């Protein structure tokens, strides 16, 4: 007898719709991939060239030792936050509307962290000795310094990356099994067989899977919070004016959720449009996401104002000079754009349901928000350094084309990995959508037909 009898399946609409990008590739995909590969390659070549030439090719100089590279690092770590974090929160809260969005968000986390993790290496003076920071047994009996926030960073980012990767992969296994059953070419069949790990959907497998997803959500959530807190401590542990503040932990985490939500919305709108998944991702979902974004925007503004008012009022001389160059000096336009993007425009716009449910308005708004959030990171890193310490050593900072290229590099790299992922895994969690539909039931109450809950 045959192992796999002649299929009676293959006519399922959800599977067909969501697996389509895995099996069909349009010229647009190749164009986008090519574009990203070019950007990524150009950035990578620039990086390699900088390794050979030296750090003088950047705009960095004493005492501005951290510039655009570190702003990029913080920005990309921040972007990663809304994937795993929001997905974990919504899973734990059993918010069913999360189902079509979580996979794309979790993948976003993994790829943004991968991009962010390169920046600590990019900004090193001797990148080729980066492994000194890793605790490994060596003949000098030397270990890393775990009192350094950078060592915490290493641990936190490694934990977060591993956690996010597992949190992305494990719930995708049942979907890889579907892709395996639908694959027609031998290469894809082999690839998805490997990725599905022999998943059959037995009672025990599902039981463990559900338990594991729950446990992972519980474990990944505090890790996500700790990662950006520790990134903020890179600044807050230093005795530098405007860095040394206790508010940085929660402030960074909220900023991260804010910018990350903005990117989730941007990507959701683009994916919905590109794959014609209007049936799966509806304005209802965009509305929900935007509401979270609105809450993050309000909280972020609250913490920013709290920090600003206290330092402005205190007028400590070291801090006053930094506030002054943001309020009226070389960083005036940065700060104004940031406030426009993140607060003055974003909050009133997001307050309207019309904006929250219209995909293209949201897309432009979220991109603008992320421009603002990038500037926020730049404003945290740079102004403090240009006017820190004895006034004899004060300076200015302007990035060079190298820093520009190294800012294009993660964007191109992220989009490249993301579009590759489109070809590797179902972008909407098929089994979770189907689970929702299985559990779906309606109840009539008077003249209304309402959705009832029958799931656990």
């Amino acid at each position, binding site marked *: 007898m045959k192992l796999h009898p002649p299929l009676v399946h293959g006519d399922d609409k959800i599977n067909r719709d969501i697996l389509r990008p895995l099996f069909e590739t349009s010229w647009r995909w190749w164009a986008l991939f090519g574009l990203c590969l070019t950007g990524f390659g150009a950035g990578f070549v620039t990086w390699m060239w900088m390794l050979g030439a030296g750090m003088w090719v950047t705009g960095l100089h004493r005492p501005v030792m951290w510039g655009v590279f570190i702003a990029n690092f913080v920005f990309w770590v921040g972007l990663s936050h809304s994937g795993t974090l929001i997905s974990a929160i919504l899973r734990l809260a059993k918010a069913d509307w999360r189902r079509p969005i979580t996979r794309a968000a979790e993948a976003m986390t993994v790829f943004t962290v991968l991009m962010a993790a390169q920046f600590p290496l990019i900004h090193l003076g001797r990148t080729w000795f980066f492994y000194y920071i890793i605790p490994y047994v060596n003949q000098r009996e030397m270990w890393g310094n775990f*009192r350094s926030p*950078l060592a915490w960073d*290493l641990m936190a980012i490694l934990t977060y990356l591993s956690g996010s990767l597992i949190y992305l992969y494990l719930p995708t296994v049942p979907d890889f099994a579907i892709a395996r059953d639908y694959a027609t070419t031998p290469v894809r069949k082999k690839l998805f067989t490997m990725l599905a790990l022999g998943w059959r959907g037995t009672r025990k497998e599902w039981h463990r899977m559900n338990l594991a997803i729950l446990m992972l959500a519980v474990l990944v959530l505090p890790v996500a919070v700790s990662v950006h807190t520790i990134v903020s401590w890179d600044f807050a542990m230093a005795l530098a004016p405007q860095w040394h503040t206790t508010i940085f932990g929660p402030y960074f985490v909220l900023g991260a959720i804010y910018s990350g939500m903005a990117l989730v919305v941007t990507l959701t709108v683009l994916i919905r449009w590109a794959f014609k998944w209007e049936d799966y991702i509806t304005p209802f979902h965009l509305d929900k996401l935007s509401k979270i974004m609105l809450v993050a925007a309000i909280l972020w503004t609250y913490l920013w104002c709290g920090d600003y008012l206290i330092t402005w009022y205190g007028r400590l001389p070291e801090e006053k000079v930094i506030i002054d160059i943001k309020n009226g000096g070389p960083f005036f336009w940065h700060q104004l754009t940031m406030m426009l993007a993140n607060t003055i425009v974003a909050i009133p716009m997001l307050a309207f349901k019309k904006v929250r449910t219209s995909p293209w308005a949201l897309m432009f708004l979220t991109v603008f928000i992320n421009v603002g959030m990038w500037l926020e990171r730049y404003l945290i890193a740079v102004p403090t350094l240009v006017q820190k310490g004895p006034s004899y050593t004060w300076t200015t900072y302007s990035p060079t084309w190298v820093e520009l290229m190294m800012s294009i590099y993660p964007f191109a790299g992220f989009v490249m990995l993301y579009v590759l992922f489109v070809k590797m895994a179902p972008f909407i969690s098929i089994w979770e959508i189907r689970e929702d539909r299985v559990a779906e039931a309606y109840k009539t109450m008077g003249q209304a037909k309402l959705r009832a809950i029958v799931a656990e």
Partner: protein
Amino acid sequence: MADLMTATHEAAHGAGHGAVQGATAAPYAGAGSPYRWGMSVDLDRCTGCGACVVACHAENNLPLAGPIDTDEGRSVDWMRVERYWEGHYPEVTAHFVPVMCQHCTNAPCEPVCPVFATYHTPEGLNGMVYNRCIGTQYCQNNDPYNVRFFNWFEAALNFVEPLANQLNPDVTVRSRGVMEKCTFCVHRIREAAADAKAEERLVEDGEITTACAQSCSANVITFGNLLDPHSKVSKSVASARRFRLLEGLGTEPVVYYLKGGQA
């Protein structure tokens, strides 16, 4: 762990306080050494001539920087003379502050290094291990005095023949991508300490001096052992004119500045 902390505290307290009278010689973990190197800089005597800067460059193989690199803030000057103007033309007074690494007892730059490239030596020096450094540049960010320097350029480009002949053989030429800073001329300290050890005695006062102190014609800079109550530096530091840079930060530098007297 608690033993480690308290033991070293007592060691430092016991000896340190008697020497620098009234000066807040902070508890220092890792002591037990008979030496605690320190410096006094008498600002009332400084003429701002810059001889110390030149001497430091010559002694410590500092990379050379032209006008463009200096203008871009990429020069390396372990010792600099900060110049501040007071008043309006023509009624102006210049004030000079020679600033080098302050070798803080609670150095903020040390704990932030993830690879122990900078640490505190038992003699109270803020040590810098060049071949351990990976160039995170975090130390400079957390350095309130801005006295740490990054090597932007390849050393070989700096010391082209015949300039290489002027290199001091006792001092490492630092490679590109590492941080560096004033060492209190640690190679001189090591040499004198080795001689003293061979002769089974302690290093005497005046046996070592730093390049900057040696070259100062106005006798602004005094270098020596703060644990020796009779050393010149201990006596100079006992002055009522004593202060330290950014003292409010609690970094406890061992460089004492003297200012405010008639001479």
